[in-house]
């Protein structure tokens, strides 16, 4: 109902014909679609690579942060400083700083491509978030599980590997996927330092035609990609809830 009203108000507004022309040009939509879709493949590559790296890197940070004892305090401090820093700085700034700063250092053996540094920036930022998700999962595993494992003579690393982390990861899959949806969208930010991904391609098309329809193409592509991920997350949450009510605690 509400949506119907909004649609009606928008469509019946005085400026609608102009907006329709500028944003919903059917011919332009069809014309610009292949190019943008092709550029979108770069987005997919960016976040697939980033996600794989984040999964591993963030787990390392989370484990570091959970290390016990006063001797390992510097490691814990390092992990805390890392998450504070990269959750604090806006993603776009990290991308700018790395994308323009790192190549300027002219380090040998390090790639200078903006794409490399863009992905690196995304990995650094999102690892800070995902590490916190992992940490919440690790802390949600009851201490008696660790006691049970340690009492059998398993070392702490093996306890983490076989008992704690498998249970923690299962519990955090839904929030993890949620963060990855955010990451998919933020892959567009990499465009700001050069690589021609979907958003950048649509900007180029817009500049060439003075029409905003290509933006709508890009928006549509992102939504289409996000929906399966969102449904998967919903399904996993629902499955977890069913399991918990069936299996009780333990």
């Amino acid at each position, binding site marked *: 109902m509400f949506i119907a009203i909004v649609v009606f108000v928008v469509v019946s507004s005085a400026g609608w014909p102009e907006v329709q022309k500028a944003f919903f040009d059917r011919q332009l939509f069809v014309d610009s679609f292949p190019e943008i879709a092709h550029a979108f493949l770069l987005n997919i590559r960016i976040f697939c690579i980033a996600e794989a790296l984040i999964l591993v890197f963030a787990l390392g940070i989370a484990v570091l942060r959970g290390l016990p004892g006063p001797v390992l305090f510097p490691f814990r401090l390092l992990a805390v400083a890392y998450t504070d820093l990269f959750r604090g700085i806006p993603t776009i700034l990290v991308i700018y700083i790395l994308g323009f700063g790192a190549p300027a250092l002219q380090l040998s053996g390090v790639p200078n491509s903006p794409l490399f540094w863009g992905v690196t920036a995304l990995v650094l930022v999102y690892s800070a978030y995902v590490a916190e998700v992992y940490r919440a999962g690790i802390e949600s595993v009851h201490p008696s599980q660790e006691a049970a494992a340690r009492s059998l003579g398993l070392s702490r690393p093996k306890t983490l590997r076989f008992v704690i982390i498998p249970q923690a990861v*299962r519990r955090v899959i839904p929030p993890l996927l949620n963060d990855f949806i955010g990451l998919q969208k933020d892959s567009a930010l990499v465009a700001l330092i050069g690589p021609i991904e979907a958003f950048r391609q649509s900007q180029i098309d817009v500049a060439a035609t003075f029409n905003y329809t290509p933006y709508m193409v890009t928006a549509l592509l992102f939504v289409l990609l996000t929906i399966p991920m969102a449904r998967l997350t919903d399904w996993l949450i629902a499955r977890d809830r069913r399991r918990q009510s069936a299996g009780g605690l333990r």
Partner: protein
Amino acid sequence: MSEEAAALRLEGVRKSFGPVEVLRGVDLDVSEHEVVCLIGASGSGKSTLLRCINLLERINAGRIVLHGEEITHAKNVNTVRRRVGIVFQAFNLFPHMTVLRNVTLAPREVLGKSRAEAEAEATALLDRFGLADRRDEYPDRLSGGQQQRVAIVRALAMRPELMLLDEVTSALDPELVAEVLSVIRELAEAGMTMVIATHEMSFARDTADRVCFLDAGKILEQGPPEEIFTQPREERTRQFLDRVIAAGRL
């Protein structure tokens, strides 16, 4: 008793949690093949004592000697723990692993047994305690009594020199207590050295070689069960047993 003869010897064991002194100088000798039951009110230190023997808690003063070898400040707690099995009140099985994997994890990862060897031994043990058909189930599909029997089997799979049982029937529905107690009785008959914290007085009377009454962090009185249960010397023991009888637990 010489140290060589004792499977376990505790000398003046003290343990504090912050300002609270939970164990206030416990002395105890346990001979090979002996079954010692610890009785006493909640908070008297039974569980803490067992956790200290397994080095899950570090003691503040005193000595712990296992088969003539002092383990009080053992550098490698894991090598001690593989010799001392412990079963907890709440079952603490690993919920993400099948029964078989629960039982074989430590033999494989701690003792370095091959998968085939560990599984053959585990299957034999499960068979012995009537759990063979549950081998491939996940813990939440088992009854509480079955879970606790699996937990006992899991500890036994490490071939411990000493078993510590911490109120293993307290979390069970009354009708499931018997099956677990019969497992423990069978272990006692097979000559397993055990220290058992329990509220099941009739079980203690029937199975224990010796009963120790813990009160406020000390062993106040100990002796053969018939003596402790029929003619306790200490007033505190008598009061405790009267309360137990009033509650219908003896």
